[in-house]
């Protein structure tokens, strides 16, 4: 396939829109994965890393901890953003 035929200008408006939407979706998915990786790493350290490893399952305490960890992390993000915005308003 001739690479020069792959430029977006060769597609009509409808196809262009579809492709852009596809790219956006893929970018969103990539960002989502990235976030899950970070959250898992952080919350693993907080909730599981220090515990005795008696088996392959996550117990109820650890599961609750993960839930709290993820939600509090997101809360922290929101608090930081809103406070930074307030600072910027001066």
């Amino acid at each position, binding site marked *: 396939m001739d690479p020069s035929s792959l430029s977006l200008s060769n597609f009509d408006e409808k196809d262009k829109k579809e492709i852009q939407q596809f790219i956006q979706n893929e970018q969103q998915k990539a960002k989502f994965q990235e976030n899950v990786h970070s959250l898992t790493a952080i919350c693993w350290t907080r909730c599981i890393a220090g515990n005795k490893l008696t088996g392959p399952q*996550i117990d109820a305490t650890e599961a609750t901890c993960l839930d709290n960890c993820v939600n509090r992390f997101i809360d922290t993000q929101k608090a930081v953003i809103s406070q930074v915005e307030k600072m910027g308003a001066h």
Partner: protein
Amino acid sequence: QQQNVENARNLIHKINTSCFEKCVSKPGSDLSQVEEKCIRYCLTKYLSAWNKVSAIYIARIKSDPSSN
């Protein structure tokens, strides 16, 4: 597809780091059976944690779209 490969690679790397940290505190000339068992448990547990975090994150975004 490429994303999936990248994702898996990322995950494996994190598991390596976390489980080495957790299971191999005194590196010897070989991995002991205790260490191998620990790594097995750790790997499974990390994957479960990943799945749980994913679900928790999705639920949070659904109930609070501003958090994305």
